Structure formats: structure tokens, C-alpha cells
């Protein structure tokens, strides 16, 4: 497997997300979902994997909503997706039925309706349809769409869009959606609230936070990438462990580092963390400082560093940094 940081991955190359995705499908049976996570944690890749490998009985439709700048564009998108899902025969039946029931030809004309009418009509059609599959919208970059609507049509319209999506979720059991985005939706909600438009727009959603990979999956990914890129490693397993651990098991950064190593074409050796005993520390301090602390003073210092979560002591009594991030920060700060 080749390293690909930032690009779109094949579903089989999205490692360590199967359990999380299973959880999302199970949740969708009951309610819609708000998927959150830091940037570059793989939220979009999870949606894409769900799109490409849907669970039986589900028909996912993926959209990156950052292209949407108005409420009507959004409603038209949803309407078109639902019409596409329902198929030609159902669409024609719905049009004729509306014409007989309401005698309103403007229902046939898409441009004659307000965005709310359009949304409701589309989801009503979805409710009435007896499809073998259930439609689920996978909406990426929702906060950016709302931000754009705020700027183009005002905060009130953005709040209405959020409320409309919520009422569709609540009133129509057939309407399922996963909302996600690069920036947190709470930023938009805070802006609305500050402007005096508080909205309970997401209180019915299940909040799913995308975690880092579990260590085994992260190491698996690192191993496959290092192997796929033919990167020479002194000890492949150690290097993969070290790499995964250094980036706190975030797949994007594992991909990035391997891509970088590929360009450097250097052989890789894991940077072993030395674990030092108190006598070893004393010996080291004696060589590098003019006034090394005495035994009691050193123990006191180690206790304080331990209490402050900088270092930790293993079962053999050896000391080490508590986390790789602290160690890395220390090395950078001290220009080591």
C-alpha cells in the first residue's frame, strides 16, 4: 500500500474504522448522528467507506456541503437526491397524486416553491415510498454550509435551516442523516446564540467522536505503508510501533510521515526511549552539570516531576517521559 496523506482512499485502505462504522450503522437504525473530530482525523474517509460499502438495506448518499451557499440550493440538493432515490415511476406517481389532491401545478415546477416547501415535499415523498432500502444522507462540511448561509442570507436563515433539518429528523422516521464537518458545528450554534437565536438544532443527534486508531490498527497501518513503500527499516515492527506512537495513532500523520520517508529514501531506525535508573541518572548528571544534585535532592526532583505528570516510573524503578509528546516538546525546546 502506498502512502496517501490527504487524498481519497479506497475503502480497504481505511484501517481500523470497521468497529466505529458498525457502531454508526447500528445507531442509524434508531437516530441520526453528529460525527465530530479534529481536522484530518479521517471523518470524511469514514463517510466514504460507508458510501462505498453500505450495510444491506441502506442507500447512502454523500455530499460535501461546502459548495452550498443558500437555503434553496440546499433544499434543491436534498430534493434531487430523494427524487433520484425514489426512481422515475414513483416520482411520476407523486406528481400526478399531488396534482389530483391539490390541483396545484406549481408542485410540478421546482422553481415555484420555497426552500421549506421543497424540503417537506421531498421528505413526504420519501415517507410514502415503499422502498427496499432506506436512504441515509452523509453530509460533510455542514458547518461551512451554515457559515456560508449566515454570510449570504443572514443568521436567521441559517437557524431556520438547522431547525428544518431537525424537524425533518423528528417528524419523519424515514429521514436519517450523518452530519459532520471540518469545523465544529458548535461554532455556528454559538454565533446564533450570541445573536439571540438559540436553537436546539442538534439535541436529538447521537454524538459520535472519531477517536484515534487503536494501537494495533495504527501499527498495522504503519507496517503496511512502510512495506508498501519499500522503506528500509532496521526493525520493521519497532519502527511501525514507534511511528504510530509518535503521532498518537492518527492515521493522517502516519501516512504523512511514511510519504516523507519515501521521498528521503533513508533507512529508518526507531528512536529508542532510554529508561534510566536513579544511579544512571546520577551518573549522567555528574558528567553534564558542574553541580549535580545529591541523592536526596535528585529523588525529590523526580518525585515532583512524576507528580506533575512529566515523567513516569516503571515497575523496575526506571524513569521515562510520561508521553511521547512531552518528550518531543522537551527535545525541540532544548534543541536536542
Amino acid at each position: 500500500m502506498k502512502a496517501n496523506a490527504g487524498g481519497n482512499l479506497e475503502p480497504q485502505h481505511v484501517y481500523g474504522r470497521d468497529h466505529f462504522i458498525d457502531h454508526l450503522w447500528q445507531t442509524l437504525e434508531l437516530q441520526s448522528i453528529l460525527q465530530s473530530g479534529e481536522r484530518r482525523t479521517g471523518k470524511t474517509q469514514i463517510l466514504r467507506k460507508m458510501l462505498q460499502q453500505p450495510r444491506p438495506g441502506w442507500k447512502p448518499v454523500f455530499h460535501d456541503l461546502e459548495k452550498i451557499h443558500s437555503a434553496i440550493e440546499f433544499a434543491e440538493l436534498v430534493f434531487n437526491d430523494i427524487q433520484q432515490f425514489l426512481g422515475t415511476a414513483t416520482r411520476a406517481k407523486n406528481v400526478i397524486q399531488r396534482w389530483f389532491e391539490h390541483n396545484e401545478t406549481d408542485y410540478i415546477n421546482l422553481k415555484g416553491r420555497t426552500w421549506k416547501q421543497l424540503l417537506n415535499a421531498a421528505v413526504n415523498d420519501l415517507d410514502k415510498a415503499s422502498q427496499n432500502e432506506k436512504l441515509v444522507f452523509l453530509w460533510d462540511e455542514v458547518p461551512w454550509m451554515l457559515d456560508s448561509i449566515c454570510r449570504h442570507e443572514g443568521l436567521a436563515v441559517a437557524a431556520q435551516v438547522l431547525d428544518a433539518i431537525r424537524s425533518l429528523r423528528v417528524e419523519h422516521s424515514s429521514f436519517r442523516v450523518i452530519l459532520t464537518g471540518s469545523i465544529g458545528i458548535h461554532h455556528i450554534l454559538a454565533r446564533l446564540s450570541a445573536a439571540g437565536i438559540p436553537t436546539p438544532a442538534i439535541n436529538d443527534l447521537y454524538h459520535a467522536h472519531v477517536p484515534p486508531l487503536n494501537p494495533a490498527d495504527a501499527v498495522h497501518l504503519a507496517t503496511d505503508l512502510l512495506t508498501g513503500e519499500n522503506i528500509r527499516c532496521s526493525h520493521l515492527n519497532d519502527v511501525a510501533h514507534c511511528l504510530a506512537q509518535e503521532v498518537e495513532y492518527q492515521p493522517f500523520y502516519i501516512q504523512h510521515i511514511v510519504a516523507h520517508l519515501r521521498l528521503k529514501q533513508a533507512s529508518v531506525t526507531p528512536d529508542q526511549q532510554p529508561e534510566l535508573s536513579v544511579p544512571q541518572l546520577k551518573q549522567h548528571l555528574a558528567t553534564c552539570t558542574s553541580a549535580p544534585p545529591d541523592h536526596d535532592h535528585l529523588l525529590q526532583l523526580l518525585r515532583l516531576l512524576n507528580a506533575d505528570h512529566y515523567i513516569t516510573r516503571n515497575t523496575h524503578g526506571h524513569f521515562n517521559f510520561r508521553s511521547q509528546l512531552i518528550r518531543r516538546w522537551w527535545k525541540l525546546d532544548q534543541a536536542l
Partner: protein
Amino acid sequence: MNTAAQTQTGHHPVSRFAPHQTPPLVLNAISVNTHRLLTNLQEQITANLPSGSTHHVLLYGPRGCGKSHILTLLWHSLHSSTQTAEKLQIAWLHELQTITSLPQLLLAVYQSLALHYPHDYSHDWLNQLLEHAPADVAEILTRRLAARFTNRRLILFIENLDQLFTGLGSQGQKQLRALLQEQPFACLISTTRQLFQSVTDRNQPFFGFFQPIEIPPLSLQHTRQLVSAVARTRHKPALADTILSPDFLSATSTLHQLTNGNPRACITFATLLTDTAPEHVSTAICGTIDDLTPDCLLPLSELSPLQRQIMQLLSEHHSAINPKEIARRLLTEQGSVGKQIRLLAESGLLTSRQRGRETWYEIKDTLLRLACQHCTPGLTPAIVHFLLHWNQARLLRQTPAQLPMLLAENAPPYNAPGDPADKFAAIFLLHEQLDSLQNGIRQMLDMLQPLTAARLLPLAVGLLRSLPKLAQCRFAPDRLRDCAAAVLQQTAQFPQFQIAGRLFQTGVRCIISGNQAEFVPLVQLERTILQQALNPATAVDTQPVNPPSGFPPAPLAPAPDAPAPDADDDHSC
């Protein structure tokens, strides 16, 4: 401007500004440090072809660093490979194309495809399409492209991605990103002079979207290989061989230092070089600066008046300057100067160093600085001539020091034969008082009458090379200050001593203080010279190098005996 370095009828032109105009064979022949990067890009693209994966790359580096050269080579290799030719098509958006919306971008992509694959893309269809509204054009083009690239991949080369993103604006960027996410049929291989906010700011849509790859400057070895390779394409095998020999190392070192290993400058130099005699080399280097000046100065045209004033001041001044001094010299408020300096630094035109709480700024690109000086009457790039002599003395005159012999003879050293560095060192040793030091230097200068540039420049270089010997003497600080004062007093009237005198003074301060904090105000190039002067033991690889691999066969040029692969090829990023 002569863009194609076509020197004689029948020679293959090497275009410095439009690599796609250069024949692929020649382009490949002058590629000295791109092999690994190209292989990587090609492997990555090939690996993604059978799958639905897309991988986006952003190559970045300053003007003339070879970004378009790499794109052109990639274009040729993807089209000539049986693995990829049928499975992809390439659309190329060149740097002069101005695009301000997604529909325009899609139109440009289609037009590029129609240009390169006329059988697959109809101009008539496009003309009819233009009757529609722009939003409809975008939708129709998206559908059409998505359908065309169901079973193959669109590789989109975009030059100056930063300009495209500026043109698209925030809304257009989001539309583009949404398109690439929803319809992953395109891989972007793009270039930019430097990383910019749209790709580095985590709040921007394209944050983390591209794999950024920095195009590093040429190493000295690669500079030598490139200059030699261009000489070979000009049917000058003897010149090409000489360029690779240790005898020519000082010339290529000078070129490398002055141009920061800029490939475009190296190609220009190589096309201007007719002979390896020193006077021809200095003429070719000055000609290179002259030739590239319009291109180098191009970024200045986009600056505000105050920014241009700052750039002008920094180019005229021999050292780096702090904002307070810049404001004083420009009769402006320090606050407004500080803001403009920050903007210039963010745009990659300035670089800074800190000493204590002070920040010192200088023009980042030595070539731009030289170009500014070149255009300013009265400012001659004296550094070119000094550097040529400096490198020659440093790299070729590795003779043992004559100092003990001079002292043993107990004679005035200034009329003795030998290295000027030894003469200076002996004068500093023998004369203890400021007056007698000055007399000693004056007598040495008198001995050299008439004082031509050819005699003074080696002497100026010798002065600087005497610094390590001066450091070994462990003189008292007052005695060292006397040395510097004596030198400045006696050489102030000679322009050839300006650089050496200035650096000598700074070097003496470094010896007194025992650290290199004094280096901070020096510009990059002079810092390098002083470091070399104070640490002459720094290893210099004077070994001959091989021509680059993949050199075209005869009759274009004789094949090298051993076209070694680029063992030291390094594309660090």
C-alpha cells in the same frame, strides 16, 4: 529576453522559462536532482490508477527552482509509459492562466484536454456549451468530465496554485474541494512558490489536502553536473569535462553561492560560458545576473510603495537591518514599517534573524538582492569578483602556511613571496603598536605598485584568510582592535577591500567575544564567507563528479564513460 538558450544553429535549445519547449531528451539530460522525486510521483500516480484513490501533491520552491521542469518531465514520462498512457489524461493549467471561478476552472480543464487530446474532446461541443449560463456550464462540464473519467484518471497540473486559489476566493475554493471530494476522478499535481494560507491554515478548506514537497536548491555537486550537462547539450564536450574538474570548482562554487543553487541561473550561466578562463567566468556570472534581473524583479511589481522602499533599502545596504533603522532611514513610523516587513517576510521575500530582542532583516534571495543592486546606478555587485577570488584561494591554494618560514627569516614579510594571508599574519605578529601596524600594511601595499584590481583582490582575500592565524595568536583585545583599525585605515580607499575589510572587522569582534553573535547583522552570503574564513578546516569536496545519468546518446553528446546514478540525489522536503 532570450528565453531559449539556443547558441548555435542545430543545437538543442534549453528553455529556461518554458521547459515544455525543450525537447524531452535534452530536458532529461539536464535533470540532475529530479530523478527520485519523479520516480516517486510516477509510482504514486500509477499505484492509484486501478483504484478509486486520489492523491494530491503540491510542489513548492522559489522561482526557477525547477517546478515546471519536473511537471514537464512527469508529463513526458506518464505519456510514454505503457502502464499509464492509456489510463490517464493530463490537463495542464499554466501559470499565465487567470481563473476566478469554478466554471472557468472546469472550462480551462476541458480546453486543455481538447488541446492535447483533440480526438476525445470536441471544440464544437464546447462552443455550444458556452451558450448556457455559467452555473449550468459548470454542472454540465462536471458531469461530462466525471463520465469521461469513470475508468481512467484525470491528472491536473496546476502551476501557481496560490494564484488560482486567490482568484477562486473562499467560495470557489470550497466549491472546488466539494467537487474533488464528491467526484474523485482527478489528482492534482500543483506548484507554488511557497506554502500559503489556504493550505497551511487549519481553518481553510484545503488544509492538509495536499502532500507538500519542497524542491530543494541544487547542491554544489548538482550545480557542477547541471552546468556541465548544459555545456554538453551545446556540443562542447571539452568545456563540459573541464567544468567537472577540480580546477573549475571555485567558479561553480561562486555560482552556487550567488544563486543559492538555482537551476535556472545555472542554465543561464552555462549557456553564457564560452571558456573556463577566470575573466570569462566572471563575465558569464555577471551576464547571468543581467539576464535574470527582469525575472528576479518581477515579484517587486506586486508590492506597495513602502514595501518597495524597504526592499530597495535592504538591497543597497551591505548588511541586514532592524525595523527601527529601516524606519529611521525611510523617514517613516516604525509601526507601519514593522507591519510591511512582516508581510514581506510572510510572502517569502525577507528572512530574519534575532539577536537578543532585536530582529534583523535581509532579502532572502541572494539573486534578487544582486538584481536590485544591478539596476541601481553606482552599486556594482563587487561580491562577484571577490567571491571568485575567495573561492579560488580557499579551494585551490591549499598550500601549507608559510608563516613560520617568514618569521624565521626575521625580515619584513611584505616583500617576501607567498600567500597574502601569511603576509598579513606576519605583519600582525611583528608589529605591536597601531602606528607600526599601519606602516607595515602601507609598505606592503607600496610594494605591490601599481595597485590594480588583479593585485588588490587576492590581497583582500588574503586579509580575510589571515583571521584564523590571528585567532591562534591570542592577542589582547586591544591589540586585535588595533589590527582591525590599521587595516581599515590603510585600505579604506580601495573598493576591492570593502567586503574583506568589513568582514575582517566582524571577524575580529568574533575572536574577541568568543562567539558568533556578531554574525547576525551580516547578510547570508557574507556570513558564509566569514564562517569559511574562521573555520578553514571545513571539508570541501574537490573531487571530480560524474555527469548526470540519462544523458542523451551521440550525436547530441558523447556518452560518459560511467554515468553513475545520482548517489547523492537528495530531495529532502
